[in-house]
């Protein structure tokens, strides 16, 4: 293949949700048209960040947390459906995924990215305020209500996936047939397949050497999300505490180094990557046996034990 035959791609990057967000578009039209598409996609991204972020005081999420214990909070339909999806995944994973873990994230110090060990009393108090079953939904007016005071939603475990889905949905509507979209490489979606090759080859990071890939997965018109313990954690007395907290135990999940999930929706794969991290190998295996459309690579192990690799409904290709 000569250089002129190689497919050309344009990369557009914006910093959002505390991470780089990238849109890669194949050059199938003028660069100006692609730039207009990217600009409009980033407008959407900015809006969604303002809606979902727990760090933007005026966001819908902060507003829900402020008002929903006092009165129903009417939501934009997209956000309402997202919360309903979260409820559904919560039920399907027996509570391993729960967006009401906001109080737990705060007592463990992960909200400010300053992890710390909470004292037992504050941990108990925070745990008592967690539970998706305490969020009531009203389909009539798209409102939610907390039936316990002090509850807090945090969409950190699903927000990036949701944003990727919404951007991909917009790109498809605008006629894009070949693209890759990712938020900090933790939630990725691909549209179509690249002009060369069977699909988009995406690396699965080796959690013990995060700059290296353990293998790869090939995707077309699909999404992939990763939850790992190598980015946000703290160490105490030789033990590593990951930022992913088990909603039931109230403590950082142990035993899994990373969970990579592929499926048709980045919202779902993002949420499941967190859930599988909490559930561990056996429960994830059982889940994936029932849900054949969900592919998973779990990397398990506690240092200094050797790492074990578990794949369900997908094949991890070796090589770079």
């Amino acid at each position, binding site marked *: 293949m000569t250089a002129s035959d190689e497919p050309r791609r344009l990369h557009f990057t914006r910093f*959002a949700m*505390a991470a780089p967000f990238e849109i890669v578009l194949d050059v199938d039209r003028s660069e*100006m048209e692609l*730039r*207009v*598409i990217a*600009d*409009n996609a980033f*407008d959407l991204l*900015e*809006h969604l*960040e*303002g*809606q979902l*972020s727990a*760090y*933007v*005081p*005026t966001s*819908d999420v*902060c*507003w829900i947390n*402020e008002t929903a214990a006092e*009165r129903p*909070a*009417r*939501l*934009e*339909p*997209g956000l309402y459906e997202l919360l309903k999806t979260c409820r559904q995944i919560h039920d399907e994973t027996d509570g391993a995924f729960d967006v009401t873990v906001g109080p737990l994230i705060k007592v463990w110090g992960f909200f*400010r*990215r300053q992890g710390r060990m909470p004292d037992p009393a504050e941990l108990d108090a925070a745990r008592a305020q967690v539970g998706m079953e305490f969020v009531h939904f009203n389909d009539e*007016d*798209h409102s939610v209500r907390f039936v316990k005071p002090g509850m807090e939603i945090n969409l950190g475990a699903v927000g990036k996936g949701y944003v990727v889905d919404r951007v991909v949905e917009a790109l498809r509507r*605008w006629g894009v047939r070949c693209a890759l979209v990712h938020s900090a490489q933790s939630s990725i979606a691909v549209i179509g397949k690249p002009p060369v090759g069977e699909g988009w080859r995406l690396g699965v990071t080796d959690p013990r050497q995060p700059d290296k890939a353990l293998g790869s997965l090939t995707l077309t018109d699909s999404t992939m999300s990763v939850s790992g313990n190598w980015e946000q954690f703290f160490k105490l007395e030789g033990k590593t505490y990951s930022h992913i907290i088990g909603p039931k135990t109230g403590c950082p999940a142990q035993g899994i180094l990373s969970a990579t999930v592929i499926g048709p929706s980045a919202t779902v794969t993002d949420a499941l990557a967190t859930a599988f991290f909490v559930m561990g190998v056996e429960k994830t295996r059982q889940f994936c046996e029932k849900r054949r459309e969900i592919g998973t690579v779990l990397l398990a192990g506690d240092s200094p034990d050797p790492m074990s690799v578990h794949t369900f409904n997908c094949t991890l290709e070796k090589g770079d």
Partner: protein
Amino acid sequence: MREGEKKSRRDLFRNAATLAASLGMTGIATGQGLDDRPFKLGLIGCGNHATLNLIPAALRVPGIRFTAVCDIIPARAANARRITGGGARVYDDYRILLREADVDAVIIATPLLFHRPMVEEAFKNGRHVFCETIMGYSIEDCKAMLKAQKASGKTLQIGHHLRYHPLYQYSKDHFFFWWKRVGRTTNIHCQWNVHGTWHKLRESLNGVDYRKWGYDEPGHVFDWHLYRKYSGGVMTEMTCNQLDIVNWFLEDKLPEVAIGVGQIDNKDGRTNFDNVHLIYEYPDGIMVTCDCITTNSFSPFGEAYVIIQGTRGAVVMAHLARYVGLFFLEPGAEEELWMPAAHRVTFETPNAAWRERKGPIILKGGASGGTNFEKVGNVLNITDVVDLETAQITKTPYQIEMLGFKKAALDEVKPFCDGQVGLRNAATILLGLEAMERKQRIVVPKDIIA
């Protein structure tokens, strides 16, 4: 005594309370009871601004319900219907909506050219009106809209949303107007730089007769802001926000002189300037400069900001995706007691003058989202004025302006941003535009808005 007389703390607190009352916040902000009186809205113009900013804000206001939506593009109207809850009746002709729909008030979020006829028609049909900025295509249009409002006795509010933003309110009170921490103000600079073509994606018009609505070409339905026939471009759609902050800080006085140059950098047939530079002379010796370019988004403080420069210091108010406020004390200026303990940004710079200068004090927010408005109370240790702040923390400026609009309409009180505010902002913008287009120094007639 430092330069620039300081107002008393009591004055400031009184001002804050008055402002809160005028914004219609007293009940909700202080927890004195929920105003859930019903208020039926119609939306005219269902583009991005309406669907991304105005509708979500209005839905947060108890009692507000959208009963009608209107857009000439069917997909946009359908989308607005969906996100307003699915119960609104859909119109493609605003005149029919205004005549027939079950609405108390309408939001007008359409291209600038259409503001006047829509507002006049709304008042003719006895509706309250919330009209997006800038108020009108010309000063004459604004005056006609005010006349129609007066004749109807209904409310007219203009969407100057930055005036409802805590960052600007706080900076105005604490650094400029009341406490004058910046000293005697001589210069204000505002800017909004972006990197982009500003083209909007085109949707299917599904046979819409765009000419009937005054558009020359189908593409203009989406890119109307690029053409002078419909709008003043970056002046009337972007920098109007920063210049409105200037007008507000300067008590809505008009400039005395406007000078400007503009050019078109995107050579794609557009007729509006996309590279503008203005100088205004305001009363009391205050010079205001305003820039907007679209080829490069670089700026020291994010894409959009306003800087007040005085003899003691400078305050920077930047707002786009994040809210950032900074106070730079001039080298040698006396510090107040709270300042040494305030959270500062540190600079590493070889510039000698900057090394003498202490790092700026953070007023609000943070670039990474790691800090928030709660910090303000701690940083400044001023508790009696933070009440207004905390009351607004989780409300977007759009939400507060919708709260205010509902209260103004139902209680028949003057809105915080009424037609007079809109007229003065529009006059400022339009005079700057005229200076650029005529390539002349415009001396503003004293009676221009009479």
